[in-house]
């Protein structure tokens, strides 16, 4: 592989890994609070559609990102109501949320099919962006790429070094203990899902505003489910998620590079790469998983009897 294609692969991994990382961080927060949300796919679709339509309407991608984050968070509250208030099954509720998001985003996005946007501005950092190789690989992106690693660190700090994070993780492990300590598990879980929705919305917006620069139905193409797999791969840890997102972003970038270079393999087979990698990685990691998962993941606090 030549130097330039290796550079392309690396920067491709960063671009493809960015939305995955936003989504994964959100899911990590939710799962740490004991809630597994398969509806992430729907949340991302909502973010993608709302972000894109807002950007077309206002001409301001920053507003688009804000609207997408808010839409994702509010949309995730439907899921919160079902699994927290109504104690519904999390997996089925998540899939229902995915359907709802797919339909609603199709409805919202329909008038904007074919619209053109400029997308997010590339921000050049003085000196750093002019470095020979590293400059092109690391410092030629938009604001959301630069922010994603700091946000991962912020999530890590919030989860492990604040009272809020401690309580949140405790809800995922043993909700009764949190209740006994005087904080209500439901409130914390709603908060976790709200933040998860914000991040999921941003992830979707990144796909429509920065990667595709267009809107298409089902444009997330299973990225939300890949992110759920990534959470397991990261062992529910925000910093490990950075490495995971880069690896999975790499799989997507590799597939795109091979297609662009006309490698004589059917694009349909190449497209399988991220999904197969998710499965393969999970299978290898499977044994370790049980020890790392929050103890009460998937169960709902039913009060202290």
């Amino acid at each position, binding site marked *: 592989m030549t130097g330039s294609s290796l550079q392309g692969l690396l920067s491709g991994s960063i671009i493809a890994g960015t939305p995955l990382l936003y989504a994964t961080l959100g899911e990590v927060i939710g799962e740490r609070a004991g809630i*597994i949300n*398969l509806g992430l796919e729907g949340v991302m679709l909502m973010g993608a559609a709302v972000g894109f339509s807002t950007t077309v309407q206002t001409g301001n991608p920053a507003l688009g990102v804000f609207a997408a984050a808010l839409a994702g968070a509010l949309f995730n509250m*439907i899921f919160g*109501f*079902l*699994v927290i208030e*109504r*104690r*519904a*099954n*999390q*997996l*089925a*509720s998540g*899939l*229902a*949320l995915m*359907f*709802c998001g*797919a*339909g*609603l985003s*199709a*409805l919202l*996005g*329909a008038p904007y099919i074919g619209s053109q946007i400029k997308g997010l501005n590339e921000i050049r950092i003085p000196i750093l962006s002019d470095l020979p190789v590293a400059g092109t690989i690391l410092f030629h992106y938009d604001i959301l790429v630069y922010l994603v690693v700091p946000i991962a660190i912020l999530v890590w700090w919030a989860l492990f070094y604040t009272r809020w994070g401690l309580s949140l993780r405790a809800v995922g492990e043993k909700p009764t203990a949190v209740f006994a300590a005087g904080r209500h598990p439901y409130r914390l879980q709603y908060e976790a899902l709200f933040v998860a929705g914000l991040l999921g919305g941003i992830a979707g917006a990144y796909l429509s505003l920065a990667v595709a620069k267009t809107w298409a*139905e*089902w444009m997330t*193409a*299973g990225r939300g*489910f*890949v992110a*759920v*797999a990534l959470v*397991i791969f990261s062992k529910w840890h925000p910093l490990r998620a950075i490495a995971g997102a880069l690896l999975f972003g790499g799989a997507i970038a590799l597939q795109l590079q091979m297609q662009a270079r006309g490698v004589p393999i*059917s694009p*349909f*087979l190449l*497209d*399988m790469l991220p*999904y*197969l990698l*998710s*499965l393969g990685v*999970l*299978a*290898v990691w*499977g*044994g370790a998983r*049980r020890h790392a*998962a929050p103890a009460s*993941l*998937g*169960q*709902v606090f*039913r009060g202290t009897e």
Partner: protein
Amino acid sequence: MALTDNRTSNVLSGPGGWVTSSIRFFALFILAFLVFAILLLAFGKNPIKAYADIFSSTLGSTYGFSEILVKMIPLTLTAVAVAVPSRIWLINVGGEGQLYIGALFATWGALNFNTLPAWILLPFISVLGVLGGGLWGSISGILRAKGWVSETISTLLLNYVAILLTNFFVFGPWKDMESANYPQTAEFVDAATLPSFVGTRVHAGFVFPLAALILFYFVLTRTRWGLEMRAIGGNPEAARRSGIPINGYIILLMFIGGGLAGLAGMVEVSAIQGRLRPSLSPGYGFIGFLISWMAGGNPLGMVAAAFLLAIVTAGGDILQMAHGLPGSAVNILNALILFVVLARQGGKSGVK
């Protein structure tokens, strides 16, 4: 992961007997339809006209009604495909992918053995459909039995792989040279086509869901296997200690579930499409999941729910063609129906 759920709770068997629970069941759907109507209104569509169109074109004519029955065939199969593994808490969300692989296997048989007479070829491609979907389902079964990957995640991811694999064959090696730019295989010979009833598209494949439902009910309530499955579903640890091969059941039930979804794929290529196309299914596998959840795995409930969602699915086409809505907008209605069902089931089991 011990994930709580309400496998045994069933919207049709609420307190207060059959009549009141049917009324309650119905009231829930009215709620879902109302919310969807408000949404349609918000997007500048006329909900009354939309619903009138949906119901008149499906229930208002013999042909429309027969089309509902046509859709119920794959929907009931994919619903049982979810219900079978759910007896031991397995969540099969891979119906869509299993359907595609079933169709793929059946197409292989139909294209390569097209000289066989119908009485051999049709059973042969049916078995191939079951085998394809079954093997695809048992990948997830094995991954789960080994304790490597939860079947929920693996079935979800394998959906995408299955659809891509189908696209690969349809766009690539199996592409029919005579259909120019259309990605599709050659047309099936008559011997590989399930016969239809005169004047409709209702076809002989209706015996498959019927047989599946009866067998499902019979095995579950009248056999040792049903008892063992209930034991695993009730208390896996106790079942394991009493010598029930849980891992065997996991793989077997994922095979059966996948096989039924695969059969739905065979039915669609053989009777409806007549060839393999990428647009084989409008999400039958996913809608089957909703049906199974709505009915809590109850056989009659699944038929009722399949009927309702067949109307909704057909309604999606009407909303798209006559009202200019995107085809997947109807997913909102599907989701709303599942929302109300889930909200009720969950609330009920929470009162313990």
